[in-house]
């Protein structure tokens, strides 16, 4: 659905984007994480045909942003990180204008607009002037606007920035609904945990390079490198510890006699971890609990972006 090939954007000698390669299947919700100035908005602007790449190309549903920008525009709904609204225009007229801009007939617009306002919980603000709406409401209205032509792909640049916690949850619910409709969604954010919850895949960008891409758990494993595991067991803890120490993926084993537990860092994949647990059972180690201490995604993010600089 989305294919980005060797995308590079230079400003003078500065690389805002450096050889980005990315392929996303239809229906994927992709979270794009990176620090300020990493290149998220630049990537999205190119996908939205607003910025000319220095080299490389991006394809939306097989259409190149370089050679068929007008076809690309029809397939995407784009929400920029910063945007304005027209004053003197009411919420329903705002949507009506953009609907007309996509060549949607007046009859269809009449049906569609109330539905969209309902989706983003703005039905009660239908006849309100858009410039008088609160920031979060404008954001939701802009999301509704990006949906007006029923695009297959949504490109949302920090849709949750500036929203209060409640509005964030609401935004997340809306996005889940859209995901349910089978849309391919690209969302950018600084906040990894926020994305992790609703995304299928995560891409981490830093300094214009895509430094990691994969499922949320993959990313955690790949980048944090290690999971922190706590095993609570009965019997001689020393034996338990020596058993785990033999595993090639295990490191820094610690004994906590007072808690009847052993902790260690684990580097293997999830499948490896399942096998490890099986092996432990086979060795008749009396495990009470085997749990992974959640690595803080925030820490992961800090770790990644520090490494790449």
């Amino acid at each position: 659905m989305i294919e980005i090939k060797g995308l590079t954007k230079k400003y003078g000698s500065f690389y805002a984007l450096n050889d980005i390669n990315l392929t996303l299947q239809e229906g994927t919700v992709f979270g794009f994480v990176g620090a300020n100035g990493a290149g998220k908005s630049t990537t999205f602007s190119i996908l939205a045909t607003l910025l000319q790449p220095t080299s490389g190309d991006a394809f939306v549903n097989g259409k190149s942003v370089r050679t068929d920008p007008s076809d690309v525009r029809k397939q995407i709904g784009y929400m920029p990180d910063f945007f304005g609204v027209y004053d003197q225009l009411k919420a329903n007229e705002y949507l009506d204008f953009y609907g007309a801009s996509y060549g949607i007939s007046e009859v269809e617009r009449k049906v569609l607009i109330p539905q969209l306002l309902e989706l983003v919980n703005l039905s009660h603000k239908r006849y309100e002037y858009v410039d008088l709406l609160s920031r979060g409401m404008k954001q939701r209205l802009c999301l509704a606007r990006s949906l007006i032509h029923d695009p297959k792909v949504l490109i949302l640049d920090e849709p949750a920035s500036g929203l209060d916690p409640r509005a964030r949850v609401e935004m997340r619910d809306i996005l889940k609904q859209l995901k349910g409709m089978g849309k391919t969604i690209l969302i950018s954010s600084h906040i990894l945990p926020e994305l992790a919850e609703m995304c299928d895949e995560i891409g981490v960008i830093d300094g214009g390079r895509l430094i990691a891409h994969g499922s949320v758990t993959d990313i955690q494993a790949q980048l944090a490198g290690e999971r922190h595991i706590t095993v609570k067991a009965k019997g001689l803890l020393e034996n338990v510890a020596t058993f785990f120490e033999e595993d090639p993926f295990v490191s820094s084993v610690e004994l906590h006699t007072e808690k009847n537990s052993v902790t260690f860092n684990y580097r293997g994949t999830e499948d490896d971890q399942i096998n490890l647990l099986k092996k432990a059972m086979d060795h008749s180690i009396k495990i009470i609990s085997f749990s992974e201490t959640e690595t803080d995604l925030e820490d992961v993010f800090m770790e990644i972006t520090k490494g790449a600089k």
Partner: protein
Amino acid sequence: MKQVFSNPVLVKEIKLRFRSPKSFIGILFYLIAMCIFVFGFILLTTQFSGTGYFRPEESFFMFTMLTYIQLGLILFITPGLTAGAISSEREKQTLNILLTTAQTSFQIIFGKLTSSIAFLLLLLIAGLPIYSMVFLFGGVSPGQLGIIFLYFFLTMLAIGSIGIMYSTIIRKTIVSMIATYGTMIFLSAVTGFIYLVITGMNTMVSGSLSSSPVGHFFASINPVVLVLTLVSPGSDTFITDTTKVDFPIWAGYAIFYICITALAIFISVKKLRVNMKRTK
């Protein structure tokens, strides 16, 4: 035709323009000023000429004055209406979204241009009843007025296109305004001055008059000269005498401004969106 009126930008702009009371107040003031001028003029001439009635020559003079007032109106309002058309959207950060819609660049530019011109046309048409007072007293033919309005329309179109073009290629509205007003002043005043200098030099250097196509060109593209030749057709010969070029002013003017309009619209359409194709 239906496509023209269903242009989303045009529809929205007109909606916005007539929603703000500013537009109505503008039209109102314009009409009041015109009325005061016309009735004041009639009153003065009938009261103080001693004859007690209004003569065709006076009616003709009033017609000329009215035409120049309207020309001035067009020259000064068109840049203001168009020079911010695109750049103000850029400043308000609504342009990006507009550019990602399915509208073609031409549709957007066309919508912006026609909505500005529609407002000006409304101004002119609102003033038409006052104009028709002149016919009541004779001295001017309706055909003449028709031609003048046609040229007004062309002038609006050309200056409007120039405004839109600057607004597209210049980021800041203020700079675009300055550029548009600058161009307008060049076309309506500086060209006349150049014409005078060229023909003046011509007589001084060669003693007798030699042919001066450049001088004629600058006279032809000057709206003030054009209006003069339109209201009093005889004045054409003066330009021909001084430049020794026998080409009708109205034709030169029409050709030049049609070309300018086409060029400005072409540049605007090309520059509105970034070129996504490989440059190097």
